[in-house]
């Protein structure tokens, strides 16, 4: 295996873009990544693309439709899906193509244009698509899954409504300084606590929206990276995790969970992050920046523990002490997080990596994490999938 670096990043801003299609957004992100690397399209030797699930056949072949705009060159195109960790799968596939020695340059991209309102089932065929049952029988969209886990946390560790609101307050501070964020308003604790209750104990501003967005990365063999980037960012690890038997999490899509824990909560993310620490030869104490999947305020707190940044039940203390702020122990979501961007399923994992790259290059202006050397992007998708990427300069 040889070393791999990121030499180009590009993103289409997050928001709602009615009238555009996924190809428009994807092309924009890829063009920016190519420009960032100073690279010609013909130099791309393989393409790993996240599937755009709401776009029918075209969306399931997103790589082909976006590549054709730049000009078809016959290179391998792999389209992947792993729910909200789709981008992590694309990233790892691109990485492996280079690390294995098969190619020197790979493009990794993801795009999503979310349907209006709450996401729902993708079929009405429970015989094949077991996911339908949660919608039809219980009305379980995603937020109740998070709320049920959050309620357990409150009971177990005494997490308060103020803690949940404070997560949003901090994230809004960073989102307000990020030009690519969808939500740029600053919030106070009272404003968050005054927002409507969506799914007790989670309020409107404590749950991420669904957005449109696209992001692209250009990966390159490290020994050739200097040809494209003055400051290549090393991929120290990029992993995929799946769940472990006995995980007590009520996983999104499932209707049941084991009562007795025999594995960690969010074991897919535990698994991805531990693989990554081993691969990179570092631990959470070495990480300067952490982009975690803050689908809700509960996720923000829980992921600090799941990824080993503090012990169980200690995340609220970390937040209150300022340990998760820029300038604290580890800058958590200095991008503003999903809270400021919203989810864009196929794109978000790649966007998180792009944000970390931008930080490690020192290009984040007023929300720059000083002297950041190690950054980590952590994702999570339904039914047990997750990915971790650790980057170093």
């Amino acid at each position, binding site marked *: 295996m040889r070393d791999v670096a990121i030499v180009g990043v590009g993103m289409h801003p997050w928001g709602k873009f009615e009238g555009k299609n996924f190809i428009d957004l994807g092309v924009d992100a890829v063009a920016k990544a190519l420009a960032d690397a100073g690279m010609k399209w013909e130099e791309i030797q393989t393409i790993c693309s996240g599937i755009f699930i709401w776009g029918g056949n075209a969306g399931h072949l997103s790589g082909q439709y976006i590549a054709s705009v730049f000009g078809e060159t016959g290179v391998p195109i792999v389209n992947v899906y792993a729910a909200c960790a789709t981008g992590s799968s694309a990233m790892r596939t691109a990485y492996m193509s280079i690390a294995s020695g098969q190619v020197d340059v790979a493009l990794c991209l993801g795009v999503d244009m979310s349907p209006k309102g709450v996401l729902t089932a993708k079929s009405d065929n429970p015989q094949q698509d*077991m996911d339908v049952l949660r919608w039809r029988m219980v009305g379980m969209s995603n937020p109740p899954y998070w709320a049920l886990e959050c309620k*357990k946390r409150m009971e177990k560790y005494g997490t308060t409504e103020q803690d949940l609101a404070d997560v949003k307050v901090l994230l809004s501070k960073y989102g307000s300084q990020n030009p690519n964020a969808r939500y740029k308003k600053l919030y106070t604790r009272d404003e968050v606590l005054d927002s409507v209750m969506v*799914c007790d104990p989670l309020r409107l501003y404590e749950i991420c929206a669904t957005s449109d967005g696209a992001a692209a990365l250009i990966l390159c063999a490290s020994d050739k990276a200097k040809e494209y980037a003055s400051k290549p960012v090393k991929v120290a690890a990029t992993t995929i995790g799946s769940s472990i*038997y006995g995980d007590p999490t009520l996983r999104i899509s499932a209707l049941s969970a084991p*009562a007795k824990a025999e594995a960690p909560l969010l074991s897919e993310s535990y698994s991805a992050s531990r693989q990554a620490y081993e691969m990179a030869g570092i631990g959470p104490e070495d990480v300067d920046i952490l982009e975690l999947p803050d689908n809700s305020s509960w996720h923000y707190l829980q992921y600090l523990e799941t990824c080993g940044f503090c012990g169980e039940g200690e995340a609220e203390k970390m937040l209150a002490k300022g340990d998760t702020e820029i300038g604290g122990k580890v800058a958590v979501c200095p991008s503003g997080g999903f809270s400021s961007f919203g989810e864009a399923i196929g794109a978000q994992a790649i966007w998180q990596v792009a944000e970390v790259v931008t930080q490690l290059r020192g290009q984040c202006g007023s929300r720059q994490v000083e002297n950041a050397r190690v950054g980590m992007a952590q994702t999570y998708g339904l039914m047990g999938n997750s990915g971790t990427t650790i980057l170093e300069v």
Partner: protein
Amino acid sequence: MSQQEQVANAVPAYPGLFTEAQDGVHLMSARCGDCGTHFFPKNHQQHRPGCSRGPVDEVLLHRKGTLASFTTLHYMPPKPFKTEKDITPFPMGMVEFPEGIQVVGIITDCSQDDLKMGMEMETVAYTLYRNEDGQSVQTWGFRPVK
């Protein structure tokens, strides 16, 4: 209408998930004879690694369990969830059964203020809507044991 007739006039929104036994409504589970894991739905098998994957026998869960978590939903879930009218806000929760499995469901016959973690809950049938033939289309639900 007698209890018996009501049952005859009801259909599940999807078969094989819950059933009415003599003592009331039970969730339909399956248990692996090798690794001992209970599954719900019964065909969502999640065996312990190394298990020979069977024999898997269909079993009914206990009617009663304890409330492991709960929430109140303040927005109507999207289709394919269907009810006669807007039922928001409504509680839903996870009930832990003696078999060692937690199952999620709509909570009925009470408000969130009545709910406490760990309280005893029982399984019931919950009517979502009436179909064109006048039958109650049902799912499972939970309610506090009185």
